[in-house]
């Protein structure tokens, strides 16, 4: 069996290839210098100085805020839209889907410059950079939120559940929020976490729209790179840890969901 020997070797090779940049940079962040074959002088000073740096902590806080607002907004509008479309206007579903999929093809660069071109010149509410940024984030995460919510709505057979709740005296909208939403909450959580990952990793939208007036961690890393590579390596490790934490949470929730579904089917 030639193939069975090939597969593990190939997998290990790809794993090593994928881990080298991560591990090397993580090691780099924990030593004073690395100019020979081995790094010298273990230290955690880079982390201590970074985590006591007020500017960095403020940046972290801003990143969190700029995650929460667009995600909450997008989840609510998508839930309402999918409710209306599934129950009352099934014919409109394909248009809603089309609108939700456009951001896939335009992506960050085009979206940011088109929003900038439209609203940058005008004053008032729409001209505020932060409002433009939140609007752009809503659009860029829309495909992921839409797919997550739609898939879980299909999984729970929403029309049937609503009908059952109506027979028991609930209104449609009441049934939606009291029966459907609790049932698909894990699907909403998973897609929101994916959205957190996207916004957390965003550089182009925030750079183009708010410039340096409103920094997130990616901009901070970009500027730190120019200052000192040791400081930047500590920022890098913190960014990667947060990203991995989000991914691990998504994987855990997805596997738990699958297991629960299998168990309930088995009964």
């Amino acid at each position, binding site marked *: 069996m030639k193939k069975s020997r090939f597969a593990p070797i190939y997998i290990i090779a790809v794993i090593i290839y994928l881990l080298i940049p991560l591990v090397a940079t993580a090691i780099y962040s924990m030593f004073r210098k690395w100019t020979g074959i081995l790094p010298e002088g273990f230290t955690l000073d880079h982390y201590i100085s970074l985590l006591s740096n007020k500017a960095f902590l403020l940046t972290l806080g801003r990143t969190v805020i700029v995650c929460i607002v667009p995600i909450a907004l997008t989840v609510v509008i998508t839930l309402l839209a999918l409710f209306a479309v599934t129950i009352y206007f099934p014919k409109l579903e394909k248009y809603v889907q089309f609108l939700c999929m456009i951001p896939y093809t335009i992506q960050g660069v085009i*979206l940011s410059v088109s929003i900038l071109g439209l609203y940058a010149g005008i004053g008032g509410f729409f001209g505020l950079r932060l409002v433009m940024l939140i609007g752009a984030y809503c659009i860029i995460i829309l495909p992921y939120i839409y797919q997550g919510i739609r898939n879980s709505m299909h999984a729970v057979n929403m029309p049937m559940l609503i009908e059952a709740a109506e027979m028991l005296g609930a209104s449609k909208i009441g049934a939606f929020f009291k029966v459907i939403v609790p049932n698909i909450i894990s699907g909403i959580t998973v897609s929101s976490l994916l959205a957190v990952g996207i916004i957390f990793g965003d*550089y182009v939208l925030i750079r183009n729209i708010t410039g340096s007036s409103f920094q997130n961690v990616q901009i901070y890393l970009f500027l730190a790179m120019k200052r000192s590579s040791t400081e930047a390596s500590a920022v890098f490790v913190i960014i990667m840890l947060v990203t991995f934490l989000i991914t691990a949470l998504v994987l855990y929730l997805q596997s738990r969901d699958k297991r629960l579904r299998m168990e309930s089917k088995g009964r």
Partner: protein
Amino acid sequence: MKKNGNTKIYLLVLLPFLVVVFLYEILPLMMMIISSFRSETDSSVLFTLENYIAAFTKLSYQRAILNSLKITLISTLIGIAIGFLGAQSAHSSQGRLKNLFLTILNMTSNFAGVPLAFAYMIILGNSGVLLLLAETLGLDFLANFDLYTGSGLILMYVYFQIPLSTLLLIPAFSGVREEWKEANTLLGGRGYHFWFKVGIPVLLPSILGTMSVLFANALAAYATAYALLMNNYSLLPVNITGMFTGDMTTRPHLGAALSVVMMLLMLAAIVINNYIIRQTTKWKGR
């Protein structure tokens, strides 16, 4: 009639969604398309093709388009090849190694942009740790590697394509049935016969679909290239951004035209992909 009037009220439920999508997706895109036909020098001209003519004839924009296409296509092809073998290996193995592989693929699938560029600078940049290592070991081909070039960019783009292509292809392999492999062996075929005559044709729709995702992903990538090379390497997304937010004078109409070109490239990838899939899956309908 009463029911009809009642349902109309529920359009209000759809309204917030439509407002947000209209304000931040439809309207900006439409205005950008209109703006791409306005003149950069004379604001009284309402319709002109000069921006598009400039985009395709001026050397610097031509280079941006060609560079973008080159890096996108090469990284897509290498990415799909590595991802195909990766998905096949993952499919034919199980247990802890497979789980570890999947976890690492998922973890690194979000690893792109500024952090990726930074990590590559640490390992392969000027005095990067791998370069120093290669120098000491006398591996000249690695020691002389220059990250700050097109090939450095391709290397980084391939990196973020690998987890994506592998993860997208793994589900498709469950469609390749063991019986087909057995039939191939019974008829005297070898492994490569199976993959070239049966496996790859069956997987072709998934492979093409994945390729169009990789293509879009690489074409739109901005942060990775900008963090490494700033404005020193001409790429479509970098040029477009420069025209809207540059330090010098901005050229929004020309930038809009280049954005439309980039959107058309994305669209072309999707349309070609759909066309080939329809051609190649006709046999399934029979």
